[in-house]
């Protein structure tokens, strides 16, 4: 009897260790995280529309039906990347994520100069070069310095009802994500 209690107790301690181990290792081994899905969806430095359905895992919720989102997976190991949109929808917001889907920078149309999306993502080294001599066409752009070479830029646009769909499609058709 005492032995059985001993066995169950050691089992529970083991369960706690396994719990912590799985929890900490899960992000590193997740095969369907945001980055892996975008990797399948398209090449780096190009815009892809994000699906508007929930992922099929338990615990996932459907995304906001009033928001349309596009993502651009970037690699700035050679040169910075510029995300540019010439159109002004009702509301846009943009977030820069690292490879693990953690938000490292975000802004919206009220914080951008003249309300247009113009974001440049660079590495610290490229930032030093830009500080020395800022190209004329980058004036007015929001320049963000990120530590890691790879990451994701996500642009979200408000779509109050279906009649705004052409406007939103036009926004994502003209939006570009290109190396500078």
């Amino acid at each position: 009897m005492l032995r059985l209690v001993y066995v169950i107790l050691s089992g529970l301690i083991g369960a706690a260790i396994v719990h912590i181990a799985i929890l900490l290792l899960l992000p590193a081994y997740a095969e369907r995280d945001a980055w892996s899905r975008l990797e399948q969806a398209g090449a780096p430095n190009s815009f892809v529309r994000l699906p508007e359905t929930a992922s099929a895992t338990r615990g996932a919720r459907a995304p906001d039906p009033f928001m349309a989102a596009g993502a651009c997976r970037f690699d700035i190991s050679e040169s910075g990347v510029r995300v540019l949109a010439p159109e002004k929808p009702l509301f846009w917001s943009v977030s820069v994520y690292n490879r693990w889907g953690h938000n490292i920078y975000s802004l919206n149309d009220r914080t951008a100069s003249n309300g247009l999306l113009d974001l440049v993502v660079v590495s610290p080294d490229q930032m030093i070069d830009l500080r020395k001599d800022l190209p004329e066409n980058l004036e007015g752009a929001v320049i963000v310095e990120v530590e890691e070479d790879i990451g994701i830029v996500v642009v979200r646009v408000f779509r109050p009802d279906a009649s705004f769909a052409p406007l939103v499609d036009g926004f994502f058709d003209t939006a570009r994500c290109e190396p500078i």
Partner: protein
Amino acid sequence: MRIPFYVALVVAIAVGGGGASVWFALNAIDGLDTLTVGAWTAYPESGTPQVDPYGRARIARDGELPLGRAEGLYFLAERDSSGQALRRQCRYRLEGGVPVARFWTLYATDRTGHAAPRPQPPAAGLHSRQVLRRADNSFDIAVGRAPEPGNWLAVTGTGDMVMVLTLYDTPVANGADARDIALPAIYRTGCDA
């Protein structure tokens, strides 16, 4: 003779219990750092590099890209103001106002991912630009399967549901105190058998 059996039992409890508890925890919560206002819960740290391990694991598993602080903040409600779980076959009334935000959206979903993947019209949801308000800027929203006059958030089907209220471009996302935030109360007005 009995030693291998005991060792096997210890390993079974450890692996089974550890795995099951992680699975259960990630289905039940979005994270540990919560901002709770009445029936609503938000995770302001979700998706930032300061996120707790549970939030980190859930984001990775569900492939989520959480809203940044300049974008907005979502609040989840799984229970009404009296503490009972929200059900699709029941009718609810949301009453009150929301904190300052450029606009907000409200929709009903669930945690299963496949049962009701995307709300379909007329069940898509409501947003602040289509809501009728009272003179003091507060509002009243009826939630249920049958149409109601005034503001109506349509839901379909049966089973549990989660209501998601997202505030876009709001100062609340930048570390507000729960005592300074007022969110709508959720009252259950009846259920269909």
